[in-house]
């Protein structure tokens, strides 16, 4: 199949950049269900995938979309689905099947104001924990990347596909309406400049191949065989042995749970990606992620103009959470202000936990609809700055 990369400069929405990123990463199966503010990605995939020989389907519901991408990935195609809050709630049912069977695929969440249907066309950041802990049953870890610009929407989508192949697991792109609908410059590089990880295939004969490496839980780059090539793969929702046979043995359950957690936690060094700005001399740090990072950076600049020593920190890979990086910031500054578009406080909980009491952590929440305004954040900085 052709690479499908269309190098050049474009003026597009984040949602469209995600589609181009997916195609550049080798995605050749997409299944979606219409939902605002994510539908533009589905529309772009419907136009683009046939051009590169890929399959794009609109399924009957969110459950069918995520399960069909799981099936397509088992069938050998890189695959993606996309949704927003209410649809993500449904997709979580299928996510467990992907996690359990270590199936590489990408799920995009363009967050909107919730809960329930909330405000369909407007921004929110309420799915931070949903994507990480929403799959029933626990006993797993998860990778999620969060873009804050159209360019990053492209770049991180490619990265999501790469990580899904390397770690053999579903990976989330945790966007939001601000990113999804912001129309700005996208530069798509030449194919030769893109790092694309291909599906890793076994090099040992079938009798020596273990579909699920339960005895080496931290191993990554574990192959995923094609169907019909004699590997006799077994994929199931049940706790399974290394060969994929359902088991109720406590020992197997323990090994499988450790495999699903340790493959991520034993490779954390490969999963740290943060943005730091003006933190060298900072006494105060503003933390935000996704589209809400944009007003936060503007507010930090406003504070700097007033001579305040304020810096900015953003997790780009939000799960696994960058505990070590946050602790380093907390050890340096007196105060951390976490700005996010939910009232309940989600990112702030992780920051507080990782800061280990080294700095005072405050929350500037919002129910969503609009991102924070730079002035709102600046006023909060001024109120808390000591």
């Amino acid at each position, binding site marked *: 199949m052709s690479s499908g990369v269309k190098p050049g400069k474009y003026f597009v929405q984040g949602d469209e950049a995600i589609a181009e990123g997916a195609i550049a990463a080798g995605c050749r199966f997409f299944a979606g269900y219409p939902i605002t503010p994510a539908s533009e990605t589905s529309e772009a995939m419907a136009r683009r995938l046939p051009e590169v020989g890929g399959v794009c389907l609109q399924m009957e519901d969110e459950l069918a979309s995520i399960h069909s991408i799981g099936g397509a990935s*088992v069938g050998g195609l890189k695959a993606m689905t996309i949704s927003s809050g209410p649809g993500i709630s449904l997709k979580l049912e299928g996510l467990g099947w992907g996690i359990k069977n270590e199936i590489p695929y990408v799920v995009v969440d363009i967050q909107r104001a919730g809960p329930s249907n909330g405000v369909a066309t407007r921004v929110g950041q309420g799915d931070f924990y949903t994507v990480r802990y929403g799959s029933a049953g626990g006993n797993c870890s998860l990778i999620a990347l969060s873009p804050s610009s159209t360019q990053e929407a492209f770049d991180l989508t490619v990265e999501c596909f790469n990580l899904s192949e390397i770690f053999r697991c579903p990976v989330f792109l945790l966007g939001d309406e601000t990113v999804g609908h912001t129309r700005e410059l996208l530069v798509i590089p030449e194919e030769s400049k893109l790092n694309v990880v291909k599906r890793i295939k076994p090099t040992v004969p079938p009798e020596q191949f273990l579909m699920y490496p339960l005895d080496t839980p931290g191993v990554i780059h574990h192959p995923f065989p094609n169907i019909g090539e004699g590997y006799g793969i077994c994929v199931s929702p049940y706790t399974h042995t290394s060969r994929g046979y359902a088991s109720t043995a406590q020992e197997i359950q323990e090994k499988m749970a450790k495999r699903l957690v340790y493959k991520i936690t034993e490779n954390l060094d490969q999963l740290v990606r943060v943005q730091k700005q003006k933190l060298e001399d900072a006494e105060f740090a503003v933390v935000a992620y996704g589209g809400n990072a944009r007003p936060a950076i503007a507010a930090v600049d406003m504070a700097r103009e007033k001579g305040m020593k304020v810096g900015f920190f953003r997790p780009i890979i939000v799960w696994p959470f960058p505990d070590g990086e946050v602790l380093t910031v907390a050890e340096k500054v007196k105060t951390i202000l976490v700005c996010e578009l939910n009232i309940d406080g989600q990112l702030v909980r992780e920051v507080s936990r990782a800061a280990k009491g080294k700095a005072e952590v405050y929350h500037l929440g919002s129910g969503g609809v609009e991102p924070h305004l730079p002035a709102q954040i600046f006023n909060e900085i001024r109120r808390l700055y000591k």
Partner: protein
Amino acid sequence: MSTVGDTLKVFHPLVDKYLRKERMPHMACPGCGIGQVVHATLLAIDELGLTPKDTVWVQGVGCSSRITYSTWVGDNVDAHHGRIFAVATGLKMARPDMNFILFTGDGDCGAIGGNHFIHACRRNLDVTAILFNNGIYGMTGGQVAPTTPPGAVTTTTPYGNIEDPFDMCQMAVAAGASYVARWKSTDFKPLVSSIKKGIQVKGLSFIEVLLQCPTNFGRYVLKTSQPQEVLKWIKEHSVHKKDAEKLTPEELAGKYLLGEFVYRPERSGIVERYQELLKKHRKE
């Protein structure tokens, strides 16, 4: 603990050829009809000359699936409860060159997965779906199913079932499947030829099998543990559609129709139509 399989090391030739012997003995209850359907499927596979290189077994959740899962010597893909058609859609679109044989149950296909079933038929996805209809939730211990007869006492209808059963063959016909048939587990020869026909037809083939579940349907609905009693009940409550023409509506009430309901091999499905779309719009 030793089992019959361990002791004798003797297998039916079809088991020997197509099933994983390390997964035997299977976990079906004594007297269960699932073995008859698997036997018919294996015979159809053998007569058509299919191999593990070109055929994948796909399951859902329930007796139909838990018992057949990871027994096929080739690849086995077992979906979440009800999601078998969704998973199969991805599999078939990714690998249109391979045959996918789906084993689903009346709860899997008719209740939790009903919407996916309807839309797979509408798309006329080129897979062969075999519905194991035992009229009850067997794996979970005898709860009412959308196929349970009215009045039946089950563990969740202690005062009798007040709902009417779902005719999934009629649904498959209405939604657009290429081939739809229903048989009893004892109709071995027609079942084998139906499965063969289903594998060969382009588009979705849906073959429902009424099978005996002495453990739960027998116990709760018929108050018997005898497989032959359940088989007798199925025989009394079913009639071939040709014979049904001679019966009055009163005589037909509560009876399952058997036979082939639709065979439209000319009807195209999503797999072919997508290939046509690619021919027109593929640029690179």
